[in-house]
């Protein structure tokens, strides 16, 4: 410390040379700090999720909001994806006379991959942003502080019900998406591609395994947790009025979407390894 002025290079030169390193360092440390904060927050909320004091009324309200009101969005996504998938597979399959595999590949693609991932991404937009904005508004209008002064714990009262609702409702939504997605494929196959309707359904049903559906539902539960946790986390951290709430909603959607896609790969590779 005391010898530093003697050996240090001219300060001006030092700042210019070190600037990029400083920037990289700050970004990396900031990134790790954020990961740490998200982990600590998630741990707190997940502990609250398994603590017996569960606010049933709030939980049911969240199930309705996250699950039931997301049905149109998820249903529409599924029907169009199923339809487009059927067209693509028909066209691609025709290159090596494999058009008859349309029902098999549609049902596989929907249940294992597209159902959970697209429902997850749609809910990242709908639910994550909604939660972040709601919690963020509560933060900036001091409702979270008020909750604390009234001996309420935000993680128990606000976050746990949302996360539990997400983990429970997203698999149910994906189950619906699976059925509607297959129906989307069926509509196109029967309406435009001259498939026999009952044969198509029989093919789909006999091809799909319970493992296909289970793997999709496990993914959905994980995505449901990610979506709600990111919404709660960003809302909880938001500050600075309307702009801060908007930023929280954006960060929640982006964070949830990226985490969904990354964890989708990790989960898929685990399922492949264990043969699910």
């Amino acid at each position, binding site marked *: 410390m005391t010898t530093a002025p003697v050996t240090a290079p001219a300060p001006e030169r030092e700042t210019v040379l070190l600037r990029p390193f400083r920037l990289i360092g700050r970004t990396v440390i900031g990134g790790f700090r954020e990961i740490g904060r998200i982990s600590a927050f998630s741990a707190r909320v997940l502990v609250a999720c398994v603590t017996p004091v569960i*606010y049933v009324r709030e939980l049911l*309200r969240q199930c309705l909001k996250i699950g039931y009101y997301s049905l149109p969005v998820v249903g529409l996504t599924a029907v169009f994806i199923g339809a487009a998938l059927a067209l693509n597979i028909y066209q691609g399959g025709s290159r090596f006379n494999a058009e008859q595999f349309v029902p098999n590949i549609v049902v596989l693609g929907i249940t294992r991959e597209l159902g959970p991932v697209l429902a997850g991404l749609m809910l990242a937009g709908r639910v994550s942003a909604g939660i972040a904005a709601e919690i963020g508004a*509560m933060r900036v*209008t*001091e*409702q979270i*502080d*008020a*909750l*604390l*002064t*009234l*001996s*309420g714990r935000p993680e128990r*009262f606000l976050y746990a019900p949302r996360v539990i609702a997400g983990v429970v409702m997203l698999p149910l939504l994906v189950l619906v998406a699976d059925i509607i997605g297959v129906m989307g494929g069926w509509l196109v196959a029967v309406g435009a591609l001259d498939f026999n309707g009952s044969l198509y359904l029989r093919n789909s049903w006999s091809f799909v395994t319970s493992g296909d559906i289970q793997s999709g539902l496990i993914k959905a539960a994980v995505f449901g947790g990610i979506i709600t946790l990111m919404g709660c986390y960003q809302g909880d951290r938001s500050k600075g009025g309307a702009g801060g709430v908007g930023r929280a909603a954006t960060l929640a959607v982006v964070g949830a979407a990226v985490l969904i896609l990354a964890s989708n790969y990790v989960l898929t590779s685990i399922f492949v390894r264990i043969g699910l």
Partner: protein
Amino acid sequence: MIAQNAPIIELRNVHKAFGPKQVLRGVDLAVAPGQSLVIIGGSGTGKSVTIKCALGLMTPEQGEILFDGEPATSPKAINAVRRRTGMLFQGGALFDSMAVWENVAFVLLYRDHVSRAEAKQRAIETLAKVRLPASAADLRPAELSGGMQKRVALARAIIASPELIFFDEPTTGLDPITADAVNNLIVEQVKALGAAAITITHDMASARKIADEVAMLHEGRIIWRGPVSALDNSGNAHVDQFVNGRAEGPIQPAI
């Protein structure tokens, strides 16, 4: 000071900074049971930060907070403080997803696990104390005027009979008549509970009405404290400027 006047809450040398910005630079404050202290001071001088530190909503970097003689630092101690205090937030901070009565009866419902019927009954009784009709109980906070929201927030703060109540700018955003009505209710209810009160405000009419004593916060420290009767001849240039609302004086206007 004799033992029976031992302060209900005491802040000793409290420092709080946000990044490079030092907000509190050693606040010393003590309030005796049943006493009503009003903290005055300009915008951004740390009035809200002071009471947020006292309630454990913010953690000071330095200094001590004693509640009823016990240091309030551990989460458990802070919880105990919150059980015995009430807080009226500046914007009301009512939960907008809940009905008015659920807001008022929040601690009964979710902390004391009172039945919903009984909680609603007590909420309606408390609403009556702040002159709100029972018909308001089932409304949502967004359906109420600003003055009514303040009264609901007051009802929520007093329902569990706290020993100490914090008021954060209770009259901000209200017209003078409504503000006076809210001031009257605050005085009446604090007296009825026999509670101590710490109010922060820059509304001098409100300060004169509510206070037994007034303290002035300036640049992160309490620079003057005295009985409300001494407000007009405090002998302190800062207090004089503030009380009379002059732009000229030792305090620079925050514009």
